């Protein structure tokens, strides 16, 4: 029969999630903050909504309960800012799919590399975990 998982305090658990360099884990707090950003992104799964958004991005965004900062970040495709505002990449992927750009190209815009540099890094085996595991630990 199954053994119980050692119980972990939720505060300690969440603190650990914030100790990863260059990463925003999609916690409940982020999910609450970014709720309407993500629901807006979901709406782009419908072809008629994509067409309306593309015709006038600002007007379409104004239909949603989204902050001005988030609207600006959405129009600028500033994905790191959107992560900070509670966006999640699986939801935001509806936006970059609507833009018709490859998933990896959109991902590369969140790094300090150009898309060709990022693609080459992946072909060369990807980013090493070395030094990228923990902010506090630096390992």
């Amino acid at each position, binding site marked *: 029969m199954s053994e119980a*998982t050692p119980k972990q305090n939720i505060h300690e658990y969440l603190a650990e999630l914030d100790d990863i360099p260059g990463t925003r884990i999609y916690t409940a707090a982020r999910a609450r903050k970014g709720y309407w950003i993500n629901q807006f992104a979901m709406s782009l799964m419908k072809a008629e909504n*994509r067409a309306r958004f593309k015709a006038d991005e600002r007007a379409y965004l104004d239909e949603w309960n989204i902050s001005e900062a988030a609207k600006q970040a959405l129009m600028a495709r500033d994905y790191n800012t959107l992560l900070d505002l509670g966006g999640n990449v699986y939801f935001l*992927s509806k936006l970059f*799919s609507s833009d018709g750009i490859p998933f990896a190209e959109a991902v590369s815009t969140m790094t300090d590399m150009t898309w060709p540099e990022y693609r080459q890094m992946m072909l060369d085996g990807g980013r090493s975990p070395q030094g990228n595991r923990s902010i506090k630990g630096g390992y």
Partner: protein
Amino acid sequence: MAKITAGVGSSHVPLLGVAVDQGKSRDDYFGPIFAGYDWTREWEKQQKPDVVILVYNDHASAFDANIIPTFAIGCGERYKSADEGWGPRPVPDVEGHADLAWHIAQSLILDDFDMTIINEMDVDHGLTVPLSMMFGQPEAWPCKVVPLAVNVVTYPVPSGNRCWALGEAIARAVESFPEDLNVQIWGTGGMSHQLQGPRAGLLNREWDNKFLDMLESDDDAVRFIPHIEYLRETGSEGIEMVMWLIMRGALGQKVKRLNRHYHIPCSNTAIGHIVLEPVD
């Protein structure tokens, strides 16, 4: 009596679906990835499973930010390919096995797993890419599918241990289904990848292969890997590997490895694939 005869683990990168749909699966980039599945495609033709219990995660397709089921089981008759922003994949509809799915759902609830039951939903690349990898491009999928969607997006996601225990409970449920059915269970997602933030692009060949070794082992230590280890070692989306533990938990203590494949990269992701058979 229904029986789980094999377990399959596989990445479900959306670009693999694009490669299949656009006829690129044998080009220089994708060829080495698909070659690792050739053995499995032939083996599946011999095995002819009646049903696949397909463990995957929905990528904000059927479930939006509103409702977040930790474990959801599809009990419907039929599922369509989701429009994920560029139109639905041109793949056959997925036929459910409502009798078996409802039997599993009821059994799991009596076994203390409080499942969410889904009657109607579209299924995204998380479910359809593994079908393409294992079955190619048939006019109709050669088996029925019981979708089992796991929340691996909003934290906390279920622990590896809970996933393993769910797999054990699914095996018990399948064995109590009266009809003779050849059932496989597939765990999908992973392996190492991170799709967000400045650390995006992280891959970890060494850790991924250690994970595959652990799946082959009689020891169940793999179920106790904490979330933080997946996140630090394999990237924020590497957490999808907990879904492979539902598959592994359903196979019992001893397994025989029939196929194993690993390739870096596919888009942002490390591709992993394993086929395991339970040993009595």
